[in-house]
């Protein structure tokens, strides 16, 4: 088992290198010279040329890549050409804001997902289960950014009970007024994980219930609660694995929801960067989000290996 874990960790290295190469390739393939992207067009040619030399742009590609990689590894994510501040600062505060959405969304989505999925499985075949299936397939087909807009239309425009946009203040919410701003985005963000988890939990629980030994447990007269505990214990590992993955998606894929609600998270930052053609910010954000996703994936794999080994013992 440890061999597997070490191998998995080592394997992450080429993956991350590949990711960095991909982002670097994209930057390089962007129309226009990299310096043109890094530097406003009004700047005189001499300065642009000296920048080219400074950034080693007259060097062959692979040297540029290693220079860029070297800077990344010491934490230098570049300078935003729009604000002239280091990207790292903006990015990490933005990530904090995204986390403020992602964590509650994860808890809500996973929690409801497990409950709904288990309910559907235990009541298989009844109207409850059929309603669940209908909801599940609807949920997967809904564009969640559209749901966000609809929620805003209902709760902000028509009913006027919840704010439509923004954070209402920076940092961790300290007042109810601030916290109100979280409600709609969190609900919107939680939809997809809820749908995915509930489907998986339902399938897993059904599969475990169909095992013969569960029938034996029932026949022995064990209380339903015992059966429930046993079933959940067996369904947990793969559900947890999927939850980890979904959390990674929440962090990396929050841009659409953040756009709808004008939320200044990593997604919002990317949005601004796209709008302003601020390539350093955009590429750094993509790189960091992808790295986080890879790390989460590894953690999920390692945890699964650990849980598997414990369960087998």
């Amino acid at each position: 088992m440890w061999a597997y874990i070490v191998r998995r960790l080592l394997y992450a290295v080429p993956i991350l290198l590949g990711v960095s190469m991909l982002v670097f390739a994209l930057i390089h393939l962007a129309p226009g010279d990299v310096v043109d992207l890094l530097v406003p067009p009004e700047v005189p040619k001499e300065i642009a040329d000296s920048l080219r030399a400074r950034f080693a742009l007259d060097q062959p590609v692979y040297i540029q890549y290693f220079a860029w990689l070297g800077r990344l590894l010491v934490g230098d994510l570049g300078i935003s050409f729009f604000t002239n501040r280091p990207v790292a600062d903006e990015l990490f505060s933005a990530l904090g804001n995204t986390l403020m959405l992602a964590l509650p969304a994860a808890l809500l989505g996973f929690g409801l997902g497990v409950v709904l999925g288990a309910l559907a499985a235990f009541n298989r075949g009844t109207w409850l289960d059929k309603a669940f299936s209908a909801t599940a397939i609807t949920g997967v087909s809904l564009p969640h950014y559209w749901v966000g807009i609809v929620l805003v239309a209902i709760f902000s425009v028509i009913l006027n009970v919840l704010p439509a946009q923004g954070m209402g203040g920076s940092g961790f919410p300290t007042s109810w007024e601030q916290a109100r701003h979280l409600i709609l985005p969190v609900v919107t963000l939680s939809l997809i994980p809820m749908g995915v988890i509930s489907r998986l939990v339902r399938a897993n629980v059904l599969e475990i219930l169909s095992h013969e030994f569960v029938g034996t447990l029932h026949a022995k007269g064990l209380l339903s609660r015992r059966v429930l505990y046993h079933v959940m214990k067996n369904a947990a590992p793969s559900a947890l694995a999927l939850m980890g993955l979904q959390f990674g998606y929440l962090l990396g894929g929050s841009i659409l929801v953040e756009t709808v609600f004008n939320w200044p998270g990593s997604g919002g930052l990317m949005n601004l960067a796209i709008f302003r053609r601020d390539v350093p910010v955009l590429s750094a954000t993509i790189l960091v989000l992808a790295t986080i996703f890879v790390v989460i994936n590894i953690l999920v794999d390692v945890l699964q290996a650990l849980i598997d080994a414990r369960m087998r013992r």
Partner: protein
Amino acid sequence: MTDTPAIAIAEPVEALRRAQQGKSYWKRVWERLRRDKVTLAMAAILIALLTMVIFAPWFTAHDPYQGSVLRRLKPIGFPGHWLGTDEVGRDLWSRMVYGGRLSLLAGVMPVFLALLVGGFLGILAGYAGGLVNSAIMRLADVLYAFPSILLAIAITGILGAGLRNTILALTIAFVPPLVRISEAVTTQARHLDFVEAARASGAGTMRILQYHILSNVLGPILVYATSLISIGIILAAGLSFLGLGVTPPNAEWGLMLNNLRQALWVDPVICALPGVMIFITSMCFNLLSDGLRQAMDVRL
């Protein structure tokens, strides 16, 4: 008693012969599909949608690009514009129908292209095994390190917006999952006894792929690809929503959603409309994919 009509004898023989034909797998899948009302309904809706979208001029009365400052944001039921108008006065119904062209194209084309590329690479990896397999799967892993939307944004954000880049970005995003599933089913098929028997007949790789592997592998891959289309439609519209996909003044559902969002406070209902189209289309493909999966899950 001697002149029994020859025709009466021929019929039972013919029926017997037909009964001995044996039903091929695809025929049985088709028969199951035919009886599945939900799937048929979905297919009908999609065909209707496709017809409307292709023959858009026949179904709409207005030019989707023609706006009118006087007629901005008219509500549903306004005379002449039964779904109202958008923020620059263009007829919403026309925009939705014409928009379907780009939305569907941007959603379906990437899956189709990814199916060709990913399917080919996956089957190759699955059948060849060894180093070829490792190389292909590792490359897919690098792309898998990105959540799909992030990858699509990376490509279109850095390379620029537009339909072409959208299709490119989504194709690249969809290749890894298709490679994965193609490789998985092909590896499974490769170890089946009848493939070994085919090798024992002295067949080369090409023949084995042609007669034995492909027919057993295409089913699951196709089902998966169909389910990817529903995601593709949502993602393509999402990209346009972010301003990375189709560019104005073209009509496209995601783009319309973004434009109309600014008018949310004026007329909240209108803003929802393009999203409804995305939802319906995606749902149809989802149910279609489910129906296909059930039909193909024929217990032999």
